[in-house]
């Protein structure tokens, strides 16, 4: 798989994000165990896995919100961790994140939400800020909602506004944390199309953390599968469809049993219901 990745993307000099042997643990519970991956410039890469597999943790480590217990993360050739607060913030001006439920500021209107990064980081005059905000809102189809508050938006609309806010500074890297969670099929297709279109139009690079197989297969250039804190499979959508790796196969085809067991670990069923000597049903 690694060979096909290199053949497709020539990763050694075009990777925007490099993750090398990253491990992470909450207290004594290991979440990531020596994860390595690369994200080429200009591509859309998905990190897939079941809930609790460590994919969102990996995204937060790439964004510098969490520090790994070991391993290195590089963004545009620069180590993400070990930077002081000012340097980390300088780096973050070139990256952005779309959160699962948008994370729009509830005390601001749609317009103010999208204008927020511009007002905080640029000295642009208000007329120019207005043009840029309307341009980004037009791109996500929400220009007519400038005066609405986040509470007045549906889940899909809130995520489109959050997407406009995430790309308003034209970031080099956009990270998406479960962008399809809880959306109806139409909203899901809209968000998927916007991610691809904006990535290609802005020349940025995208990392999507998701467990939506169908949408991701149509959208991304490359996929990583993560389970129990390790990468268990990777490849282009075509390679993944043909994969015989047990975890990838179970995940892609939605099989109820396999490497991810149906049963949560428990003592023998017969013992639990008081039938001495019985084996697990």
């Amino acid at each position, binding site marked *: 798989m690694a060979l096909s990745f290199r053949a497709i993307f020539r990763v050694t000099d075009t990777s925007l994000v490099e993750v090398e042997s990253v491990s992470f643990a909450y207290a004594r519970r290991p979440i990531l165990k020596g994860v390595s991956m690369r994200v080429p410039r200009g591509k859309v890469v998905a990190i897939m896995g079941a809930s609790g597999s460590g994919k969102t943790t990996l995204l937060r480590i790439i964004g510098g919100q969490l520090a790994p217990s070991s391993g290195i993360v590089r963004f545009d050739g620069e180590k993400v961790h070990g930077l002081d607060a000012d340097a980390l913030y300088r780096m*973050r001006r070139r990256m952005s*994140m779309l959160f699962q439920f948008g*994370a729009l500021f509830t005390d601001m209107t749609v317009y103010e939400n999208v204008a927020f990064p511009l007002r905080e*980081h640029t000295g642009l005059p208000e007329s120019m800020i207005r043009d840029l905000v309307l341009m980004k809102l037009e791109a996500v189809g929400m220009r007519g909602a400038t005066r609405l508050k986040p509470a007045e938006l549906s889940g899909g609309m809130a995520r489109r506004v959050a997407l406009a806010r995430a790309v308003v500074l034209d970031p080099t890297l956009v990270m998406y944390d479960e962008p399809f969670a809880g959306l109806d099929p139409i909203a899901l297709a809209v968000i998927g199309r916007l991610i691809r279109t904006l990535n290609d139009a802005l020349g940025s690079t995208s990392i999507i953390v998701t467990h939506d197989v169908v949408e991701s297969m149509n959208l991304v250039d490359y996929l990583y599968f993560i389970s129990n804190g390790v990468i268990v499979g990777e490849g282009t959508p075509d390679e993944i469809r043909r994969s015989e790796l047990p975890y990838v196969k179970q995940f892609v085809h939605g099989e109820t049993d396999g490497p991810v067991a149906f049963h949560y670990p428990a003592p023998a069923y017969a013992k639990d219901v008081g039938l001495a000597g019985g084996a697990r049903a």
Partner: protein
Amino acid sequence: MLDIRRPLGRLGHNVIDGVWRAGTMARFLWLVLASSGTSFSRFRLVMREVYFSGVLSLIIIIVSGLFVGMVLGLQGYETLQKYGATESIGVLVALSLVRELGPVVAALLFASRAGSAITAEIGLMKTTEQLTAMDMMAVSPMARVIAPRFWAGIISMPILSLLFSAMGVFGGYIVGVVMIGVDNGAFWSQMQAAVDFRYDVVRGIVKSFVFGIAVTIIATFEGYDAPPTAEGVSGATTRTVVTSALMILALDLVLTAFMLRSED
């Protein structure tokens, strides 16, 4: 035999947890102070919070102050009547309010009205990932969200305390002079003679300033530290009110002792 290891263990755990939280809060205060540059360079952020925590607390402060002053007038008249000193009712009302009741009761009300709102707002911003989103946009939540609320509390608290005392004196006037018929001139002149601006009014302001720091740092810390769940935010809001009330009363004792000692 009674096994005391478990209660002792729990006590030890609570003590360690309390010391840990106190240390974290002290570090939080330091971070807030270190992040306060934005609050002064963009003072409108502070003024916006002064509106939410100060201006919107005006009704409860004014009404409570009026009632407390009226009750003080009634109770004071009842007692002073026994000694034939009913003209001193203005002194009693004013000194009680300016020295103690104004700063303490206004701070308790501020903690209940504005402190709980600050904690709930910050806690919900954390729960809905708004603070994380801000941090990912390279905008410090400490400088943009916490510090303006902290300074707004410090600015609002002494003003609210003075308003509370002023309304209390007015309430005492309504009961003592208008309703009971104490001499108007005696009411104001004795008050003017007995209340010293530096020793009474300024000390009351100093107290309310300290209470303002205590309430806002507790409120912002509890919101920022709240577990990102509905139960977590609700618990943090309750802790803000309870901890602030205890802290106000404890600080009042310490400040009063220091102030009286410095008079000797």
